[in-house]
């Protein structure tokens, strides 16, 4: 598994060599107010660039924008749920009017355990946070489209340093052209979590638990029956400001995995309708995969919830 990562890293390094060619990518002064934590030094451990998977767009085209974070060795930035500490990375794409912007897509995070049982979730080395964009039908061929994005992050090693940047990317309107970054986007798309219906290794999911009326705490148990036993099963809960979620206990036996954790409603907060988390695993041939698991929180909606994926149990 280490070797597959090394090969992957090399592929990216080769791609990085052509990053400067085209399209135009430049930093503009940060005007965002996502972070008021301090000044960013010049030798900041994280560099961010705005990229697209095309180098030219035609009217009505759907393409993908991404902010690529290059993180110096030893440092990490955070997932959408930073965990016990840290701060979620932010990416705000600002395409011109008429463009439709999809949701920000987060590749599978890593889990960090620091002394003092401090559990956080994030990324090391490199990550591409993406969103799909649909261009309007009335774009004028020959014109240029300016796409903007803002990114903010907290990176930590021995200490933590915040960073933010405003990014700009110009794409010509005309015929759609492939980009030197197409392979990079393909590689990072393969590291996105999949919906439960598209997973090939999970046969059946059963959820127990949930809040009955006026309850403030519950224990949720996910029972996963796999079509073939995966390895290195991890659980990444989503962040919800109204909830406190304990670290999960994960037990696997044969093709069955049980993931259990407690969820409590914080004082003066109301119970959200649903919650979600990622089950991440490694397939027998070494690929790290993830499934997004939606979890209804009301007991009447939960208990006995069973989802069968398109694959039947053998």
């Amino acid at each position: 598994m280490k070797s597959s990562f090394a090969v992957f890293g090399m592929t990216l390094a080769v791609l990085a060599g052509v990053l400067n060619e085209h399209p135009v990518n430049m930093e503009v002064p940060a005007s965002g107010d996502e972070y008021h934590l301090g000044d960013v030094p010049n030798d900041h451990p994280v560099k961010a660039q705005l990229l697209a998977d095309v180098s030219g767009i035609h009217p009505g085209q759907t393409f993908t924008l991404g902010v690529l974070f290059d993180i110096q060795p030893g440092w990490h930035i955070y997932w959408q749920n930073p965990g016990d500490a840290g701060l979620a990375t932010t990416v705000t794409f600002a395409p011109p009017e008429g463009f439709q912007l999809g949701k920000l897509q987060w590749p599978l995070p890593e889990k960090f355990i620091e002394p003092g049982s401090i559990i956080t979730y994030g990324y090391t080395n490199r990550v591409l946070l993406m969103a799909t964009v649909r261009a309007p039908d009335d774009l004028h061929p020959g014109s240029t489209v300016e796409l903007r994005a803002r990114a903010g992050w907290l990176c930590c090693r021995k200490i933590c340093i915040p960073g933010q940047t405003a990014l700009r990317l110009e794409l010509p309107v005309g015929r759609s052209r492939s980009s030197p970054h197409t392979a990079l986007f393909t590689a990072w798309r393969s590291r996105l979590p999949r919906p439960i219906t598209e997973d090939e290794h999970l046969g059946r999911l059963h959820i127990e638990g949930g809040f009955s009326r006026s309850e403030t705490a519950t224990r949720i148990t996910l029972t996963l029956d796999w079509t073939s036993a995966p390895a290195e099963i991890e659980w990444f809960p989503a962040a919800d400001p109204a909830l406190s979620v304990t670290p999960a206990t994960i037990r696997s036996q044969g093709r069955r995995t049980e993931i259990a954790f407690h969820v409590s409603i914080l004082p003066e907060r109301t119970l959200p309708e649903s919650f979600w988390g990622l089950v991440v695993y490694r397939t027998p041939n070494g690929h790290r995969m993830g499934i997004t698991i939606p979890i209804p929180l009301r007991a009447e909606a939960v208990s006995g919830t069973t989802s069968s994926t398109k694959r039947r149990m053998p």
Partner: protein
Amino acid sequence: MKRKPIVGLAIWTLVATTWAMNALAGDRGERATVGAPAPTFTLEDQNGRPVSLSDFAGKIVVLEWVNPDCPFVQRHYRAGTMKRLAEKYQSKGVVWLAINSTHYMDKEDNRRWIEKYKLPYPILDDHAGRVGRLYGAKTTPHMFIIDTSGKLVYRGGIDDDPRGTKNGGALNYVERALDELLTGKPVSISQSKPYGCSVKYAEKSTAY
């Protein structure tokens, strides 16, 4: 007859809440649970003087986990958040103790931070991390409030503004809890999610 279900519900809610709090803190061997007596400790301040929680029996005590290297802490100190609260409530008998569990810092670092911001409270040296682990302090800042009976009545963030973008519009949980305690009311928000840098604990720490 009519009151019974309500009493029953109240007791049941109390049981459920207590269980919830235990579930929140209990899984990681932490002993600082809201509603339970706050764990006692003795640490040295920036001048080497021992300070014990029991020195302040009968008083409201605020514990603040601090790390001068953490940008969240730096932001709050530049804004004077902690100093303003400590000064505001000092005259009302509230004791403010900052605790530094950063493994690579010592009393000299704490003294410098106090001098830099002219702090009206001590910073206790916990570079071994024993008290931090005992309380389950996860972040800097991470705040705890102990009431006059020695019970832990709040654990969580300083406010609801992790990114520091609310420009004065943040809800300061500590200020609200202290106002409630000083007017004889129960603390309405007894727990919140703390935010900040992780506490930079020493790799290994002996049990306190």
